[in-house]
């Protein structure tokens, strides 16, 4: 139970950073925290107490029905995909932040306010 509460706490900390910080790079870091917390939560979902990692080393093990002692491998594959999605999102956000710096000469979001209405 404790790891799950830690993940939710990390999510909330990241959300706080996104909402209340004024520097663009800090907002990107806050978003990285959010995405990290969600991936960690998803990976922890597949855990079973006292189980083995899901790697088959001898062909005979498959026939012996060893799968019931393994940790669930499906969340691990899904989290891999989610991590790659997060990576490309962070890359795009950082490149947008760099372009904003070139145009406005500042990283402060209270100065970047050309769109009104």
């Amino acid at each position, binding site marked *: 139970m404790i790891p799950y509460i830690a993940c939710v706490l990390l999510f909330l900390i990241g959300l706080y950073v996104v909402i209340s910080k004024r520097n663009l790079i800090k907002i990107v870091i806050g978003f990285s925290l959010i995405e990290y917390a969600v991936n960690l939560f998803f990976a922890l979902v597949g855990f079973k107490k006292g189980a083995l990692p899901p*790697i*088959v*080393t*001898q*062909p005979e093990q*498959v026939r012996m029905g060893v799968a019931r002692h393994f940790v669930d491998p499906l969340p691990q594959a899904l989290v*891999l995909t989610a*991590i*790659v999605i997060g990576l490309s999102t962070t*890359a795009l956000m*950082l*490149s947008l932040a*760099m372009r904003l710096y070139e145009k406005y000469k500042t990283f402060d979001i209270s100065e970047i306010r050309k769109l009104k209405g």
Partner: protein
Amino acid sequence: MRGMSLIVQVITRLMVGMLLLYGGYIVLHGHLTPGGGFAGGVLIAAALILVSLAFGSVEQVERREYILSSILESSGGILFIALALAGYVAADYFFRNAGLYYIGKPLQMVSGGIIPLANIAIALKVGAGLFAIFLALGASRFVMKE
């Protein structure tokens, strides 16, 4: 872009080969051990970025590297779609593990049908893509005109 000091350059020269070899190992054994295309691709990209950071580069060279990475990345993507469609055409289900690659005994490196080829395609795409992102974002502040 300036390179780094002499110590960094010597250590990089020693380590790059091992990094690339290790990345290739993770890619090729993706169906047997954890890792696979994504993780191996990231390692290969990290090796290339290390060389680029340690030795510095000139704008001409960077432009050529950018175009090469872009071509490699698209080829990786096309290879992946071609594998999926090959399963579609040959064995009637998208992505099915048809007998295109040698389905040998389980747990050898050359086994498992299409899966190692798909891992190689993904590693190509991820590795070249990450290196292209690094070049485009900030290697030396050039603007791509094309």
